[in-house]
């Protein structure tokens, strides 16, 4: 059992798309994308779409449920530089509470829906999101909003 080498964890409601699969993956030097999402773990089409992006970037990709991520991520080899991608702050909290060592949480796209209010142009939240973020911060996770790598980080505590 090792501590898995998670180079970055990102919340993105599009999971792996161009920005994530090419831009972030390239700039952090990850070699394995781990999509921790219960729906994606079951959807062949979603997997095929995201795997195409990973393959063109020359990195590996896995689609695991949250449960499998919690139980299995510690089997990662140290040479695996993992980019963990999740859809919601609630999922991030589930993983963190389950013992997945998330130190930094990059908040990317959380698009507008229902009556969510905006924190930035790309990040919209409701009360449940805010509660999850607060709890993550309490657990010692460095949570920040940053859409693209050359943009300045905005600490979540400063905006919620």
């Amino acid at each position: 059992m090792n501590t898995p080498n998670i180079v970055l964890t990102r919340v993105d409601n599009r999971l792996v798309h161009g920005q994530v699969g090419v831009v972030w993956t390239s700039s952090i030097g990850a070699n394995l994308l781990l999509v921790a999402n219960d729906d994606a773990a079951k959807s062949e089409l979603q997997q095929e779409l995201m795997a195409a992006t990973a393959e063109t970037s020359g990195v590996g990709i896995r689609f695991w449920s949250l449960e499998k991520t919690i139980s299995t991520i510690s089997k990662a080899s140290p040479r695996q530089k993992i980019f963990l991608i999740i859809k919601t702050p609630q999922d991030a909290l589930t993983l963190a509470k389950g013992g997945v060592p998330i130190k930094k949480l990059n908040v990317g796209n959380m698009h507008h829906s229902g009556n969510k209010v905006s924190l930035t142009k790309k990040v919209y939240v409701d009360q449940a999101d805010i509660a999850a973020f607060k709890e993550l911060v309490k657990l010692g996770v460095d949570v920040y909003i940053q859409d693209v790598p050359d943009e300045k980080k905005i600490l979540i505590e400063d905006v919620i």
Partner: protein
Amino acid sequence: MKIIVTGHGNFATGIESTVKLLAGSIKNVTYIDFTAEMTEEELATNFTSILKKDPNIVFFCDLVGGTPYKQAVLEKENHNIAVVGGCNIGSLLEVGLQNDLTSVTNVHKIAEKLVTATKASVQEFGIQKPKINEDISNGI
């Protein structure tokens, strides 16, 4: 070194807008359009003024054999440059973000990476099943 993106019409600034949306910016990449009202000499002047500041350049051109490409190749006589044509946005992002271009001087190495990344990223969806292998004997 620098990468100069150049092409017919607004190819270069079009690529720039895509980079901006996806990555914000890529360090050491410059975008030069060759628009209808421009002459070849004007394009060459733009190239030369950049080459004066940094002699190590990879030209990233829209078309092999088009005017921006040919004009770039002419600079080979006096400068340490490489010229690629037909490379795509994915290759520019990958190569531009994975390499610290400031410290690189081997322009041909970067040119080769752009061509390789482009070839690896052209496909029709669904024709080749991507590999999602889970060999967890050595890691996950």
